[in-house]
């Protein structure tokens, strides 16, 4: 079977998300679709899956034009999609999730759950996916949830399987397993579209690579005949620096001290479990780990957004465990939160207002109940220029900025103060390569100025290249404290999965 997109154009108010895109994939091959966030990959896949209708262009299967008006049509035509954010109902079982929409039924529309179980077992055994049909989704690790999604697609007999950023939530060893699954799908005569922004993975698994930039296909490549930097250049439109440029760190004394810190959820689960570490001035400490192993809660405890159950936090030998977020700010802590739009910014407020959000109460910006808007305006104009925030008018709402520029607003607000400690959670999640370079450079600049920096990221590459020291979190505990220059990605991956590389001493 050959699946084609011909001249697909999709417009949204103000932007052209897809601009006459041509693309084709056949059964038995892997096509990687690569591009930055906002390049139009997801829109294109939503067109393919019948969620959006294209404004121009058509879809063809073996030459015959198709008109999908809902995902049901796409599924019937043999297209399956594994979404980036899993489409699984967390409180239901594997079997229930898999048969949703194609339920086997007995009398009076009653659900034949035994048949559903049997179907899950059959498919998962055939492709070696090892699934328990009765497990509840929310109890399963992310890698297993992805296999449930794959079974869902296979059960509907998809000929072309689309994976949208499938490796974003996986550990390095899970990624290898995932590639095995992709190979077995291709061997069984199915076609795969692999959407990603990770160049290495595209080069590893794909037969062909299509590069998307600003809604257009800007290039095609065969993995054997190309290099990472060539593709990166196609993606961004200029030569890019793929590694972080920094000098050897010169650590001073301990600035942040965390001692035996635990965080307990209201339902009694311990999510951060007796964590102790230090961050010294002039060094970047990275925390690696698969999403959901307590990093979010650790950062919330550090920033004062959540109370710790046990333990203490001190900044420059002053105990701040019971201080409010504002008091911690005043003690010299900068915080770049992981959710830009919910925690970092008030997106409905202007860029200027967001830039003074943590300092509006300073004498510089207000006297009594009166805000000195003229000072705030002057200051925000300075910051917009100094931190390369791309906007014509700082009085526009922050929501009008792109993700990368929104992140620069937060970086400008947090790092422009006189700080001693910076805590950055997922500082480059979902932003373009150019902005990533910029944010990394700013973080390194702060380090060189003697600030203690803690970076939490689920992107292993980021942690490894940015940090001077790497801690790995697994199930709420710190399981490793290593020098990123002396360990391999694979070894860190083992720590992230809760095991230990052969020959490594217990930490």
């Amino acid at each position, binding site marked *: 079977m050959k699946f084609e997109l011909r001249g697909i154009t999709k417009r949204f108010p103000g932007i052209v998300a897809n601009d006459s895109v041509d693309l084709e994939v056949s059964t038995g091959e892997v096509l990687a679709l690569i591009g930055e966030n906002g390049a139009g990959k997801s829109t294109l896949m939503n067109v393919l899956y019948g969620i959006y209708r294209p404004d121009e262009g058509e879809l063809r299967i073996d030459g015959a034009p198709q008109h999908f008006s809902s995902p049901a049509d796409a599924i019937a035509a043999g297209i399956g999609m594994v979404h980036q954010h899993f489409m699984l*109902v967390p409180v239901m079982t594997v079997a*229930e999730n898999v048969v949703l929409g194609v339920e086997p039924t007995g009398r009076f529309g009653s659900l034949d759950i035994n048949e559903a179980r049997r179907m899950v077992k059959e498919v998962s055994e055939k492709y070696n996916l090892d699934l328990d049909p009765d497990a509840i989704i929310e109890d399963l690790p992310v890698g297993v949830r992805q296999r449930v999604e794959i079974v869902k697609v296979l059960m509907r007999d998809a000929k072309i399987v689309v994976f949208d950023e499938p490796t974003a939530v996986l550990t390095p060893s899970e990624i290898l397993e995932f590639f095995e699954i992709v190979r077995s799908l291709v061997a069984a005569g199915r076609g795969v579209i692999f959407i990603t922004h990770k160049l290495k993975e595209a080069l590893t698994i794909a037969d062909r690579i299509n590069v998307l930039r600003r809604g257009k296909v800007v290039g095609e490549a065969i993995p054997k005949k190309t290099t990472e930097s060539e593709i990166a250049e196609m993606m961004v439109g200029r030569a890019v620096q793929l590694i972080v440029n920094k000098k050897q760190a010169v650590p001073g004394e301990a600035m942040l001290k965390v001692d035996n810190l635990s965080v307990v959820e209201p339902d009694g689960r311990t999510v951060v479990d007796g964590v102790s570490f230090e961050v010294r001035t002039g060094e970047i400490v990275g925390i690696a780990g698969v999403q959901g192993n307590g990093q979010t809660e650790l950062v919330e405890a550090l920033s004062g957004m959540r109370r710790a159950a046990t333990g203490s936090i001190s900044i420059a030998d002053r105990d701040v465990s019971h201080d409010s977020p504002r008091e911690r700010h005043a003690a010299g802590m900068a915080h770049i939160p992981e959710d830009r739009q919910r925690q970092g910014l008030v997106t409905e407020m202007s860029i200027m207002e967001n830039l003074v959000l943590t300092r509006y109460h300073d004498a510089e910006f207000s006297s009594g109940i009166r805000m000195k808007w003229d000072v705030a305006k002057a200051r925000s104009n300075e910051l917009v220029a100094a931190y390369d925030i791309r906007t014509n008018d700082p009085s526009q709402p922050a929501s009008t900025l792109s993700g990368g520029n929104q992140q620069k607003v937060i970086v400008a607000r947090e790092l422009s103060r006189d700080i001693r400690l910076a805590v950055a959670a997922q500082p480059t999640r979902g932003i373009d390569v150019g902005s990533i370079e910029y944010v990394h450079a700013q973080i390194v600049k702060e380090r060189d100025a003697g600030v203690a920096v803690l970076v939490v990221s689920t992107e292993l590459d980021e942690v490894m290249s940015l940090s001077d020291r790497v801690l790995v979190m697994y199930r709420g505990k710190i399981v490793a404290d290593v020098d990123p220059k002396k360990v391999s990605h694979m070894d860190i991956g083992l720590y992230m999965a809760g095991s230990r590389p052969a020959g490594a001493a217990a930490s």
Partner: protein
Amino acid sequence: MTTAMPERVVSAEQRKRARSVGITYLVLAMVCFFVFTRRPGDAGFRITETSQFTLPAQGFGWALGIALVAVAAAQLLRGFGRLANVVLALATASFFMSFLAWAAAGDSFSFVGMLQDTVSRSVPITLGAIGGILSERSGVINISIEGMLLAAACTSAIGASLTNLWLGTLIGVLTGMALAAILAVMSIRYKVDQVIVGFAINFFALGITSFISFRVLVPNRDTMNSLLPVTPIRIPLLADIPFIGTIFFDQTIFVYFSFAAVALATWGLYRTKWGLRTRAIGEYPKAAGTLGVDVNKLRYRNLLLAGAVAGVGGAWWPIGIVGRFDQNITNGRGFIALAAVIFGRWHPVGALCGALVFALAEAVRLKIGNFDTGIPSEFLIMAPYVVTIIVVAGFIGASRAPKAAGQPYEDQ
């Protein structure tokens, strides 16, 4: 995620809750000592036409008070672990019996009649709660159950007065569905805030039925608002079981319908294809949508069904018990039904239990009114609502609503 931690740290909330339950036992014990031991005499609880058992009000009060102090001490010192809820239920039930003994000291009353009344009065709360469950399980918050009950009570009273009881009930059902259709279109098609629409429907129903009551029904009382309600149907054999039979099997068709609705809703939600899809669109509609399930169509259907069930609940007032419509006859039962939904954690059987607890509070209020307890009648009228607040706030604690309830589904 749920691996056993070597050293289990109990969260602050859990500790706080265990402590407040312990303190509640102490407060109950104080009530036993200082209130329930004040009225002398034996209380007679009639359990059939001819037999009764008696409780010495004061003696029972002292005994229970001492027992509760012991329970409170055990709770505060080491807790009951897995038995906590059993102890809580036993303590609550004993306290309730002591309260009745105190109220009826030196007198006797029909205990079985009170429980029979409880089951009857649970009907509109149960059916309202089933309506609420069907809506919220599909992802639509439905606070307009009250309006649906009230409007259906009004139209079914008129319909039944003019035609017959069956047609009257059917008209009530259609009225419930009509209001549900408004909620559905507003919240699904136009994505208006579901709580606001619900409020609007409630006030609309209250306003229009009050208007009809004053302008139409009062002047035409004999022709348009007068009917003979249904009579109880004795189920052969089952109704002859002493005590239990009288409570459950000598009731009107509305009671049997409401039990059947609970059974059917439970089976439907957990054992059918429709139920699987309904639960999916209430938890994570995108999951169902990307598999080709038409989320919004199913939401429309389920809301209409919810309106129909609530419509039967509304028809209970004129056709099941009172024989006419009065202004604001529902008096907040729709909101109590929503409390029953939360009490029952969005499960039909749980909601039925909640409805029975609330109906019991109401039945007790009506019985206690006959005794000279010195409690002002205004306080007695508050009883069902006070029980609602205590039960929902204190005993249920945090419960998990369907995740997508309240969020419109973007079809694209």
